[in-house]
């Protein structure tokens, strides 16, 4: 059985990738499961989707714990524990990373025993609309790496799954998908299917038994204010807004008023400060600043040591 996990951010098309790959496997006569997995989080937050494909009926359920292939659409997720990109990755598992850095760098950095394949990150991907094609590119990459999905099966799957979005979008995705499929032909078939696990061998997790409590004790009541500030939504960001202090006129804090997350505070002197621990990188502030004092820089190019609490 093939077990494939796609990791990306909400909005990058990982669910679509899993659907396209699932349908492509199906077109090749496989039994298939595909499903997205979200938490409560939204666009920008880490999500994953997964596909199982086998020549026989699939009885396995739930998330994939021991993948044969992990595809990482957004390299900034690797370092994020909450994204759990490397969960269950062993010497057998192939890791494909959409990145500007070469495979040995990642291999060394992550101390991986298994193979790493790089899908080079094109410069134009900084345009967030082009980002949407990452999903189809990832599906194409997976199809090539498993080596049992012909281009025709993939093309048909892509057409079927994207049909509702219109012909123009289908065509716009076919080109990049084909390029990725061709680009990875040297690695064709580098992913080997993992063994089917039998029910007898199933090891029960260590459950923590919870006592049945009175509703007044066990109801999920929150007794403190503003606890959400402990959640670091700054990790959702792919673009970082940076205020150019020389250009900022300390206007009527347009940026601060419009920031949906309230992540810009104004100090006593009327100067705005961005709270990078929570800024989600929507760039509303940059679009609204009347003096064009806020610049968007890709997160991976931003200085890493910048104080996440917003002091500059």
């Amino acid at each position, binding site marked *: 059985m093939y077990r494939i996990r796609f990791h990306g951010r909400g909005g990058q098309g990982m669910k679509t990738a899993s659907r396209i790959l699932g349908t492509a496997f199906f077109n090749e006569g496989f039994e298939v499961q595909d499903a997205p997995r979200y938490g*409560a989080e939204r666009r920008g937050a880490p999500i994953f989707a997964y596909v199982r494909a086998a020549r026989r009926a699939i009885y396995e359920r739930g998330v994939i714990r021991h993948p044969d292939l992990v595809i990482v659409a957004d390299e900034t997720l690797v370092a994020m524990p909450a994204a759990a990109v490397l969960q269950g990755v062993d010497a057998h598992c192939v890791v494909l990373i959409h990145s500007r850095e070469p495979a040995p760098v990642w291999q060394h950095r992550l101390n991986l025993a298994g193979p790493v394949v790089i899908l080079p990150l094109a410069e134009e991907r900084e345009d967030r609309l082009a980002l949407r094609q990452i999903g189809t590119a990832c599906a194409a990459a997976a199809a090539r790496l498993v080596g049992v999905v012909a281009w025709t099966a993939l093309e048909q799957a892509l057409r079927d799954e994207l049909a509702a979005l*219109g012909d123009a979008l289908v065509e716009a995705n076919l080109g990049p998908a084909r390029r990725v499929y061709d680009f990875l032909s040297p690695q064709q078939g580098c992913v080997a299917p993992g063994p089917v696990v039998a029910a007898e061998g199933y090891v029960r997790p260590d459950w923590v038994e919870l006592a049945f409590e009175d509703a007044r004790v066990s109801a999920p009541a929150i007794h403190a*204010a503003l606890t*959400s500030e402990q959640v670091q939504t700054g990790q959702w960001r792919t673009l970082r807004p940076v205020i150019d202090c020389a250009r900022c006129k300390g206007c009527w804090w347009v940026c601060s008023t419009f920031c949906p*997350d309230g992540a810009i505070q104004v100090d006593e002197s009327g100067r705005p400060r961005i709270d990078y621990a929570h800024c989600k990188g*929507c*760039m*509303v502030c940059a*679009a*609204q600043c009347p003096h064009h004092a806020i610049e968007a820089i890709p997160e991976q190019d931003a200085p890493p040591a910048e104080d996440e609490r917003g002091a500059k």
Partner: protein
Amino acid sequence: MSETRFQTMKDLPSCHLLGTGTALCAGCGGLEALHEIYDILGEKTVVVNAAGCMTLLAVYPFTPFRGSWLYTAMASAPAGAQGVRDALDILLAKGRLTAEEDLQTVVLTGDGAAYGMGLSATSGAIERGLDFLYLCYDNEGYGNTGQQYSGATPHGARTATSKGPCGYPGYKKDLFAIWAAHRPAYVATVVGAEPLDLARKIEQAKNRQGPRLILSLAPCPTGWDFDPSETAQIGRLAVQTGVWPLKEYRDGQVVHTKVPQKRLPVEDYLKRQGRFAHLFQPQRNEALLQEIQARIDAYWDNLQS
């Protein structure tokens, strides 16, 4: 508006009361409006929330609020508010709460609840003269479950359940008029992209008693399909094209608070959103575009006469 403390933009709050770290999408127009509203409403509130995107504001054990928050079923937030208000009144009557300590009862729901599922509970609450403030963030669909159509979806928009070449065949309900027909204490439309107009209306609503509605257009990058950075631009275009009239009902009168002098063509608003892309590609749907424009023109022409 001489009675307002919000004379110019400089009077808008520069410190924000709603906490960061919520699970809503980057660039959420509903959250933009909510944080502007909360700055003025303040922490002496009990928020009664029905199922929708904003349910994700308070995911145990995290909350961005300074005051209380309560979750109800989708159709029942006004009924929940009744219970909260009654409890507060009992505490006041028994002297266990001073008038100073009293709280505003605030209902917070999306359009799916406000225009549809919760409308009957809302109508009943207004009928009973419940002292509450209803905040509806209108993202024109069931956002939390993947943007299926709701009673607030505009004609022609693509939703997860309206995918044909002409989009949603129905017409957006007029919730403002439905509320106003109940003769409540106050009704107003707002949008986060017009913060001064919004602040004045929240100030008005806060100082009144009885049933009050604040209806906020909530540009939704995820459901409407646009880049998150454009949330405020799209909100402003909704006002400038006349799609979203800013108005209030008070003391039995409807007053428009910001009349666009020269309305921009509605296309300027539609073409920036993927949910209307089928009106322009593969070819222009001239008839539908004209129909949408004609409805907006008719609305504003009616006002003049």
